């Protein structure tokens, strides 16, 4: 599990790599919070192309970050989920608050 970020113009590109489950959720949560705390950006695009696995534990992690960013008025978008992860996002209506972009 690895989380990396880069800021281009006013957008933070956040990549989650590896497997996001109960075991890695705590680390993912801490990493995302610390990366999102700093820097000058007005929106976040979460790139999931390197996320090989995610179960429903990941939903809680994503909603938690969404709530924190909402307080600061920063929208989060999601890009390139795998088929299984896409299904999880759809069934839990996560795309309603974190729209998918290409």
């Amino acid at each position, binding site marked *: 599990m690895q989380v990396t970020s880069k800021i281009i113009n006013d957008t933070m590109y956040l990549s989650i790599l590896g497997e996001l*489950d109960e*075991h890695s959720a705590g680390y993912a949560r801490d990493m995302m919070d610390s990366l999102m705390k700093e820097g000058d950006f007005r929106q976040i695009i979460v790139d999931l192309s390197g996320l090989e696995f995610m179960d*429903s*534990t990941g939903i809680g992690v994503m*909603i938690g970050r969404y709530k924190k960013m909402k307080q600061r008025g920063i929208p989060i978008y999601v890009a390139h989920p795998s088929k299984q992860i896409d*299904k*999880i996002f759809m*069934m839990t209506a996560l795309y309603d608050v974190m729209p998918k972009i290409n």
Partner: protein
Amino acid sequence: MEYLNEMTLTFLSHSINESFARSAVAGFCVQLNPTIDEIGDIKTAVSEAVTNCVVHAYPDKKGWITMFVGLKPNEVVIKVSDEGVGIENLARAREPFFTTKPDEERAGMGFTVMESFMDEVILEKNNKRGVVVTLKKVLNKKQNKSCMNG
């Protein structure tokens, strides 16, 4: 013999064993020649069932999780059981967004995910204590011949 092949694994409820459990099931199911999507669905459902044991069945100490996998010509049957604290209201536990731990950023979507990724999900009380989750999935709906049929 009810199954063409079967296996049972017993492991402790360490969260690091979630990835071991889903990989072990995926590896065992390969002999039925599933599609990549089917394997992805099974891995997700197994991860949900094992996570429930890790988080809810044994909240204060580590305990044993037993995972049985049985293979039929076109179906996988997985039983994940624990001997933990049990679930008082089994029907309520399956409801979407129901969680006993909302303060831990838990979505309460584990059973909804299992139901969506598998064909059948059964939740029962275990004989002694704890619960058993049975997951069933019909494979090769596109009529691939399984390796085990020769």
